[in-house]
C-alpha cells in the first residue's frame, strides 16, 4: 500500500472509531474499546522496538508499568492532578526505557528477551515485596508502591465532574482515541522516515548497515527512548482510567497476550498491532461464555495462528497468498456454475 492509501485507511478507521459512542452507550462496550485502545497503543510502540528495530525486548509492559506507577504514586502520595502525573509518567518511562536500551546494547536475540524479562520480573517481585510502611492513615499501613494489592482511588481525569457520571466514560474514550491516534501517527512517521529505514537496515544486516555509517548504538537507544514515551503515557492513562494500578499488570500472562497480539497481527508492519489486538480481543470476547475453557481456546488460537500465518495476519494479506486462494475460489465457483447449468439438461 502507498503512504496515501495507508493514511486514507487510517482516517476512515478513525472516523468509524469516533462514531462508535453514537451507536452504543453501553459502558461495557465502551470500556472494552478503551482497553483495546490501551493494548493497541502499547503494542504499536512495542512493534517499533521489536518489529521495526528488531530488538527482542520483553520489557514493554515494564515500561508501561513505570509510567502507570509513576503517575499513580504521584497522584496518591502528593495528590497531583492526574493530567500532570501522566506526563511525568511518560517522562519516567522514557528514562527507564533509555536505561534498558543501554543495558541491552551488547546483547543479541534470545539474550535480550531473557534479560528484559528478568528486569520486568525483578520489578514485579520488588513491588510485591514492598511492605515497609511509608505512613499510617486511619490505622492502615500505606506503602510506597502499594505492595501486592496495589494503589487505588488516587483520582482520575475529572471527566465525572465535567461531563457527569453517565458520560464520564465518553471523555475517557475520546482521550484514549486521541492517544492512540497520536501514537500511531508517530509510529507511522518513524516507520516511513529515514530513521525507520535505518532501523530496518540494522535489523536486516547490521554489519552492512554499520559499514554504511549507521550508528547502531545511537539508533537503538533512540528507538527505546521514543517508544518509551507513549508507552509511559498509556500506562498513566491506564492508571487514571481504572483509578487503580497493581503488580498484576506485570504478570507474565498480560505480556504474553500482547506479544501474541503483535506476532499474530504481523511483526514490523504498521497495521500489525491493530489487526493483532483486534483479533485477539475479539476472539477472547467470543470465548467469554466458555469460562475455564476460554484460556484453552485462546492458547489453541495462538498456536494455530502462528503456524498458519507465520508472517502474521497483515503479512498474509499482503502476500500473494490471498489472491491465489481468491482466484482458486473464482475458478471453483465457475466450475460449479458450469456444472449446475449443465445439470438440468441431463
Amino acid at each position, binding site marked *: 500500500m502507498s503512504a496515501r492509501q495507508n493514511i486514507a485507511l487510517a482516517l476512515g478507521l478513525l472516523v468509524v472509531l469516533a462514531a462508535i459512542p453514537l451507536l452504543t452507550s453501553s459502558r461495557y462496550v465502551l470500556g472494552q474499546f478503551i482497553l483495546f485502545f490501551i493494548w493497541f497503543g502499547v503494542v504499536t510502540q512495542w512493534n517499533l522496538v521489536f518489529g521495526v528495530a528488531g530488538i*527482542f525486548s520483553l520489557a514493554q509492559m515494564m515500561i508501561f508499568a513505570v509510567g502507570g506507577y509513576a503517575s499513580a504514586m504521584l497522584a496518591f502520595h502528593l495528590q497531583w492532578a492526574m493530567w500532570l502525573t501522566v506526563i511525568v509518567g511518560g517522562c519516567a518511562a522514557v528514562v527507564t526505557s533509555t536505561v534498558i536500551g543501554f*543495558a541491552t546494547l*551488547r*546483547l*543479541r*536475540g*534470545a*539474550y535480550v*528477551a*531473557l*534479560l528484559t*524479562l*528478568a*528486569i520486568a*520480573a*525483578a520489578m514485579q*517481585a*520488588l513491588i*510485591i*515485596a514492598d511492605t515497609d510502611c511509608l505512613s499510617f492513615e486511619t490505622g492502615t499501613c500505606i506503602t510506597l508502591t502499594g505492595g501486592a494489592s496495589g494503589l487505588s482511588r488516587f483520582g482520575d481525569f475529572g471527566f465525572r465532574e465535567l461531563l457527569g457520571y453517565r458520560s464520564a466514560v465518553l471523555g475517557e474514550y475520546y482521550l484514549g482515541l486521541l492517544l492512540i491516534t497520536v501514537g500511531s501517527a508517530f509510529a507511522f512517521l518513524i516507520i516511513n522516515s529515514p530513521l525507520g529505514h535505518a532501523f530496518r537496515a540494522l535489523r536486516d544486516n547490521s*554489519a*552492512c548497515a554499520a*559499514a554504511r555509517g549507521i550508528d547502531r548504538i545511537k539508533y537503538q537507544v533512540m528507538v527505546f527512548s521514543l517508544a518509551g514515551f507513549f508507552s509511559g503515557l498509556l500506562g498513566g492513562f491506564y492508571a487514571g482510567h481504572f483509578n487503580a494500578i497493581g503488580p498484576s499488570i506485570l504478570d*507474565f*500472562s498480560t505480556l*504474553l497476550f500482547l*506479544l*501474541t497480539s503483535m*506476532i*499474530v497481527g504481523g*511483526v514490523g508492519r504498521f497495521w500489525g498491532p491493530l489487526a493483532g489486538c483486534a483479533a485477539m480481543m475479539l476472539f477472547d470476547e467470543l470465548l467469554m461464555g466458555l469460562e*475455564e*475453557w*476460554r*484460556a*484453552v481456546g*485462546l*492458547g*489453541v*488460537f*495462538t*498456536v494455530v495462528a*502462528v*503456524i498458519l500465518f*507465520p*508472517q502474521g495476519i497483515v503479512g498474509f494479506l499482503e502476500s500473494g497468498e490471498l489472491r491465489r486462494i481468491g482466484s482458486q475460489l473464482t475458478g471453483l465457483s465457475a466450475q460449479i456454475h458450469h456444472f449446475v447449468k449443465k445439470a438440468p439438461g441431463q
Partner: protein
Amino acid sequence: MTVLDSVLQILVSGITLGGMYAVSAIGLALLWGVMGMLNMAHGSLIAIGAYASVFAVGYLGGTWYLGLPAAMIVGCLAGVLLYFATARWMVGSGQFEMNIIIATVGVAIVVKSLLIIGFTGYPQRQPFALEGGIYLGNVLVPYQTMLIVCVAIILMMALSWLLKATRMGRAIRATAQSQKAAALMGIPAERIYLQVMVIAGVLAAISGVLISSTANTSPSLGEVTMLKVFIICVVAGLGNIPGTILISFALAVLEAAIQYALSAKWAFPLLLGIAVMILIWRPYGLFGAARIRKV
C-alpha cells in the same frame, strides 16, 4: 548455631535447589543448543511431570516411588506432542526463533488451563517424598534432599553417557554443531529434533516431581521455576550444558545464602539483579562463546 552450621545449612538447601534446577535447565539448554528453540512451554512440562506423579500415586494408588517413572512416561509423551504441535511446522522457517516462542506460549496457556480444569487450582501434596533425615552436627539433612541429589546426579550421568557414547548422542551433537553439515552426512534433522524434545520433556517432568516434592503441586508450579531456569541458562551461556550445571548449583547456593542472610522475599529480585549485571558484563553468559559473525 555456629558459622559452620550456617554454612552447612546454606549448602544443604543450595545443593537441593541446584539439583532440581540443573535437571530442568539441561533440557532447556539442549533445546536451545540443538534447535535454537526457546521453549516457553518448559514450565508446562515441569507441571505436567509433577501432576503425572500425583495422578499415578494419589489417584491410581501406586507406591510412592512409581511417581517418577510415571512422570518420565508422561514427560516423554508431552515432548512428542509438543514437537508435533509446534516445532514440526516451523523448523527452518525464517521467523522460527520468534514464532516458536509464541507457539510454545500458546501451548503453555493451554496446558495450564487444562491442569486447572483436571486437577483444580488448589495445591496438592507431592507423594514422591521421604520423611525424616539425619543430623550432621546441628544441621538436619532430610532424606528428601539426598533423594533429590541422587536422582539429579544419576540423570546427569545418564545424559552425559547418552550424548557422549551413543550413536544418537553423536548425531545430536553433530546437529547442534552444524545442522547443515550433519544433514549432508545423512542425519535427519527432524528425527534429532524429536529426540531432543523427548529428552527435554523427560528431564523437565522429572524436575517437576523433584521441585513439587519440596513445595506443593500447583498448575503455576512451572512458571517461577522456568524463569529461574532461564536465568541459569543465560548466565551460563545458552546451550552450554556443563556450564549450565555449574551455574545451576552456584546460583542455587547463592539463592539459599540470600534467603538465609536476608529474607526469602529478597532472594528472587537480588538473583535477577545479579543475572542482569552478569549479562551486561558478559553478553553471551559466563561460558558462552561470543559468536563472531563474519561479514
